[in-house]
Every structure is written in C-alpha cells, then in structure tokens.
C-alpha cells in the first residue's frame, strides 16, 4: 500500500498525527541560559526528564520513557566515542545533532512500518559565557532549531510553547539566581499544564511555593551545567537547599 507516493505521504501524515496524539499529556521541560550556567527544569512522575550527556552537555526531554532512553543512549555513545577518539573539546552539540541524532531521528520517523520514536527534547551545551551557550530544540521527526534567546520551552502544543518562552524572557532579569529562575519555570509549567494564563510567581496562586502535592505528586528535577566551577564535568543535580 505504501509503494505509491501519495499513500506514503498519507502514511507519514498519519504517523505525525499519531505521535502528536501520543505526546498529549506529557508535561513541559525548560532550559535557561543564565550567568551561573544552563538551568534545566523538568517535573516528572517517577521517570527522570533531565539528564547528563557529556562534560558540558545535558538533555531535558518529554515523551515515552523508552524512547527517551533510546535518544539518550544514542547521544551518549556518540559523544563518548568522539571525545575518546578525538578530544572532549571536539564534542559539540552542533556536530552531534547534525551527524548523529538528527539523521537517526529522521530515518526512524520515516520508516513508517516501525514503531515511532515519541520524544520532544531540548539539548544544552555550556559555553564559557552566556552568549556562547547553545540550546537546541529537537522535534520527533529529526528537525531541530538552535535557540539564541536564552530560553527554550518544550511542550506538546507549539503555540503555547512559544507563548511560554516569550513570557519567560519578559520576566527574566539578569540578577535572578537559579532559585528564582526555577520558580519562574514552575509558574510557566503550571500555566501550561493547567491551560491557564501565565502568572509571575510573586503573585498569589502561582508556582512560588510549588510542592510535589501542588504538582500532582510529581517530582521537580533541576540540574545545572555550572559555569562557575573549574571541574571537567559541569553537570550537577541541584539540591533543594541551593534553590531556596
């Protein structure tokens, strides 16, 4: 049935619709390029959403946990092989997306008789200063775009995703610490998942005092690619005490 071009196009369209349908209900993940480093925030219900990839690389993803694992393992393998064969400085997000993950995702998406990969994600690469950070929003079909405005929101509704990112940029100021940025991220997260207007965390009813109970029993995950430390490995999970 798929040997005719229009049938193939129809099958791809159906596949796209199926994946979007499967992604409904997934909750957003966010990434912020800040003076301290790159902050990644996710809210999960058992399965992690924020991951270390390489010395200066991290991932935040939503979708099917098994598919997130596939993406994660693929990129980790590529990064470590490249870092070992050449050097850690040669492991860059642009090269990983261009030559490893992007083609793999596209091929997987277009193989319409195999199970699709149900993942949307953001990759982050820490630079030596804010302007050198790289954030990449990656779609399930292998397309991706690099974001240079310092904020990426990954959500299943792309219009809401853009609105959230715009709102967050308006709210962010240079003097905000990672704790304040995290509260802002949670405010955006709550607005997106509850389909309500964006409200700054300083006003009543917003995410300032978000607890696991207020988040539906989910666990807040925060990690920082830390620009301030000199260690080779910059990724570290943030403890609650660091975010207060």
């Amino acid at each position, binding site marked *: 049935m798929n040997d005719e071009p229009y049938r193939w196009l129809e099958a791809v369209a159906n596949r796209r619709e199926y994946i979007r349908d499967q992604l409904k209900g997934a909750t957003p993940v966010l990434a912020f390029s800040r003076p301290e480093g790159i902050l990644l925030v996710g809210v999960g219900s058992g399965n*992690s959403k924020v*991951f*270390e*990839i*390489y*010395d200066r690389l991290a991932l935040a993803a939503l979708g099917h946990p098994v598919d997130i694992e596939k993406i*994660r*393992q693929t990129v*980790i*393998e590529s990064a*470590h*092989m490249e*870092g*070992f064969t050449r050097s850690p400085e040669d492991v860059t997000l642009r090269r990983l997306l261009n030559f490893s993950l992007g083609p793999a995702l596209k091929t997987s998406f277009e193989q319409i008789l195999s199970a699709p990969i149900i993942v949307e994600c953001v990759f982050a690469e820490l630079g030596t200063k804010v302007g050198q950070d790289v954030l990449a929003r990656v779609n399930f079909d292998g397309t991706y775009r690099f974001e240079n405005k310092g904020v990426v929101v990954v959500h299943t509704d792309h219009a809401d995703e853009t609105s959230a990112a715009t709102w967050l940029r308006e709210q962010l100021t240079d003097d905000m610490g990672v704790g304040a940025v995290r509260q802002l991220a949670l405010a955006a997260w709550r607005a997106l998942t509850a389909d309500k207007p964006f409200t700054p965390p300083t006003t009543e009813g917003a995410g300032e005092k978000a607890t696991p109970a207020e988040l539906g029993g989910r666990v807040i995950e925060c990690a920082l690619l830390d620009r301030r430390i000199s*260690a080779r*490995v910059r990724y570290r999970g943030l403890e609650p005490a660091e975010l207060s």
Partner: protein
Amino acid sequence: MNGDFIALLPKSPFATAQASGGHVPRLEATTVFAFHCAAGVIVAGDHRATAGNIVFSDRTEKILELDRHSLLGIAGSPAIAMEMARTLQTSFDFYRRSQLQPMSQPAKMRALARLLHDNLPATLQGFGLVAPIFAGVDGVEGGRPSIYFYDPMGAQFEAAAFAGSGSGAGSIKSVLHFLEQWSDPKPAEMPLDQAVTLANQLLMTAAEYDTATGGVDPARGDFATVKLLSASGVRSILADEQAGYWKDKVSR
C-alpha cells in the same frame, strides 16, 4: 546497553602489540605512592620521566583523576599508562551517564585489571610494562578511601597502610614502614599539612638514590603532585598550598 564503553571500541587498545626483538627505548622509572592520613588518602608522585639515562621531562603528571572518587598513580610505560587512564576516565563517565548511577569501586578496579591483562603482550615483550596504584572511595560501602596496587598482569592487592610503585618506591616504602611502626604520629594519624610535607620529603629521599625520580625541589618552588582522596572526593593540593605547609613544617 550495559554501560561498557570499552566494548564499543572496535578493538581493545591494549591487545595489539606484535613487536619482537630489537631495542625499544623504554620510558619508565617513576615514583608514585599512596598512604593513609587522618584526612583520607594522600596520593603523590614526582614529575620526572626518563628514557634510559636521559631525563625526558621534569613536568610529567603521574597522578591522574579518573573521576571524582578515584585516582590512578601511573608507573611504567607512560604512553600505555596514560592511555589506560584515559580509557578508564571515559569508561567511568560513560557508565555513570548511561546507567544513571556511578560505577562501583570493585567494578572500577576490575576494569583496570582487565586493561592490564589485555596489555600482557606488550608487558611480556618488555616495552609496555605498567604497574599502577589505584585509590578509590566506594560510596556504597560508607565512603572510606582505600589503596590498591597491581602487578603488571592485572592482579590487585589492597594496601593496609601504603603502597608505592616505580623505581624510587623501594626507598619510600621502607621509610613509610619505619614511620608506621615507630613514629608518633604514624602517617595514618597525620593531619593534612604534615602528610603533604611528608609526601614531598619522601620524594626527595627517593631522589637521593634514584636518578629517575625528580622534579621536586621546594627551595625552587617545585613541589610534588599531591592529591587528597576523602569521602567527599578528590582534591588537588596545589603548589601554593604545599609551599605554605612546607614553610610551616620544615624549619631548615
């Protein structure tokens, strides 16, 4: 996916030596050692690399941080030893990232033993001998740092108080044995400043009788590579800090 980075490589990097006969210049002779002190484990080494009777370098780093909780002191053929350290660094990082948990200390030690065993052809042919010491902390077992030394074929032995490897290690192990038996405080009871100063004194003692040990001269501001391993991880004791301890502890 089992988190084994070495299995991803097209072939083992240490099992390919086929050379036979001929004279191959050997970059060896070194002094690295580790001992327990009150703050944790001190792992230290000199800076000299030699090729026969030639001083190849007096700026060599032989105490290598494999990850935040393990250190390798390398002795023997530097090319192979440094490549082993690089392989282990990548393996430990790869495992932690892919499996979402750190590799256990027994698995780390096994990985090092496996590399040494794979290096057997080069060892037997006389140009690739590596005899490292390993210091690590296993968080699963309460975080006490421990010291292990290896033979070139990969057998591992835990050191109760200290271990050393390289051409100057004999002198140092003799002194450490003496101090453990008859000094007060024993090295295992020494505070950090005293232990760091002792590490430099030990290397200067070894250098007195071993031309292949060198690069440590506090009078010129050249201190040993000294790293402290404790439950909280690895900390490098940099030259400025060592100079402060040296000034306080050594009167002459």
